């Protein structure tokens, strides 16, 4: 298995986790159940979301042969899904980051900030939608399947829920209803990920061109998939363990999130290695 698309692995996985966590925490903020003081306490560790987005975008430029020409990626906005993805991702980054900064500095009215938050959340959804379409290429039979949007969505849900849990925990708000619901969401997503990746692996048997079979693309695909699924099971175990034990909760949640990144990056790398076209 090659790692030649590692910059894209980092970009897509980190961005999906960041968007997922931002939308979940944004929903909590929009409900208005957070007093001003709690909001400010939660806002501070949310910086991690923007650090992840920064690393994601920095990694994405490493994918380019001519990184200095990166702005040219916007030239076909509306026409190419890659242009749309970069545009919507940048806008999400900018407006979400602005919301974070305004909350930190306590500038402009809370209502205006909530409007900004809502727009940033919608941009996050649009960004994820564009990423999916970048890979739904009709001439690439191994990517142009419902497993691509499902896999990307599950990364957002699993990574987003765990990251949101960690951020709530870091701000001392692990008692909230949302913090108690997040493990259920994560567990559900992980179970769906287990089932769907097995179904996906079996579906590969039916994809072939005259000179290439999908099942021959990645040697030891099944073993690597089992490693990923074992990592995801460990993620869930650590997550639940962290919430049951009272001590070192942020540390154990952090370890769980690192394992989740490893599992999803392995899974995403398998995805990129499954590239083949309908022809030569």
């Amino acid at each position, binding site marked *: 298995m090659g790692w030649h698309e590692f910059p894209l692995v980092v970009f897509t996985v980190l961005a999906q986790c960041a968007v997922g966590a931002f939308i979940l925490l944004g929903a909590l903020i929009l409900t208005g159940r957070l007093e001003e003081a709690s909001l400010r306490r939660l806002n501070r560790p949310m910086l991690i979301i923007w650090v992840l987005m920064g690393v994601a975008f920095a990694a994405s430029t490493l*994918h*380019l*042969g*001519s*990184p200095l*020409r*990166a702005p*040219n*990626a*916007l*030239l*076909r906005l509306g*026409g*190419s*899904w*890659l*242009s749309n993805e*970069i545009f919507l991702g940048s806008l999400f980054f900018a407006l979400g980051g602005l919301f974070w900064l305004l909350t930190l500095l306590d500038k402009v009215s809370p209502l205006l900030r909530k409007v900004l938050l809502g727009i940033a959340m919608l941009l996050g959804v649009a960004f994820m939608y564009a990423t999916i379409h*970048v890979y739904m*290429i*009709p*001439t*690439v039979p191994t990517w142009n399947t419902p497993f691509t949007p499902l896999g990307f969505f599950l990364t957002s849900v699993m990574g987003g829920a765990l990251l949101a849990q960690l951020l709530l925990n870091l701000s001392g708000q692990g008692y909230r209803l949302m913090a108690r619901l997040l493990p259920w969401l994560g567990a559900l997503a992980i179970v769906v990920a287990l089932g769907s990746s097995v179904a996906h692996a079996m579906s590969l048997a039916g994809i*072939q*061109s*005259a*000179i290439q079979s999908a099942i021959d693309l990645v040697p030891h695909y099944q073993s690597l998939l089992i490693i990923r699924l074992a990592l995801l099971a460990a993620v869930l175990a650590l997550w639940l363990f962290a919430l049951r034990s009272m001590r070192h909760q942020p540390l154990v949640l952090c370890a769980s999130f690192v394992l989740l990144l490893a599992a999803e990056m392995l899974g995403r790398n398998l995805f990129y290695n499954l*590239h083949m*076209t*309908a*022809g*030569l």
Partner: protein
Amino acid sequence: MTQYGFYIDSSKCTGCKTCQLSCKDYKDLDVDINYRRIYEYAGGSWQADGDTWQPSIFSYYLSIACNHCAAPACVPVCPSGAMHKRSEDGLVVVDTDTCIGCKSCAMACPYGAPQYSARKGHMTKCDGCYERVAEGLKPVCVESCPLRALDFAPMEELHERYGNLAEVAPLPSASLTGPSIVIKPNRNARPVGDTTGSLANPKEV
């Protein structure tokens, strides 16, 4: 718009790769870049013939560059617009001053035409020798073929002279991108969608 295209006579082609090399020389390409690639599709089986078994084997060559498709897969995915279809001759060309080297076109093309040059930092591909074509010449690969198995002309002329076949194994279905090619099949050619053969020279393409 005149749509130019290639004629590929797979019944004559011996897989000598002169076309590939003349192109490499003319375009000064690196070792790992081939604007024209020669695919050898081979296979075979045994047939019972009374008390004996007879082999039925096939092996034939397809010399494929860029097919300058009517609906190219590489163009819509390009985020910079560097990959474009020229309005004057229908040739699909990459603007090397705009390309960011994201390789999206290479991911989408089912013929392996756009290739990334790590040395240059951008995509490269067959441009149909459009400068030669504008002077009334044919692309270098066509003129170099010792078997006279390649031709290049407006598609109407190629259709009139050689027919309409644009797909045989191991090529993808022509309905995907509308390749601007006409193929004269080898007598052992397998229809598109065939999976009984295999690529006999994977390291050469």
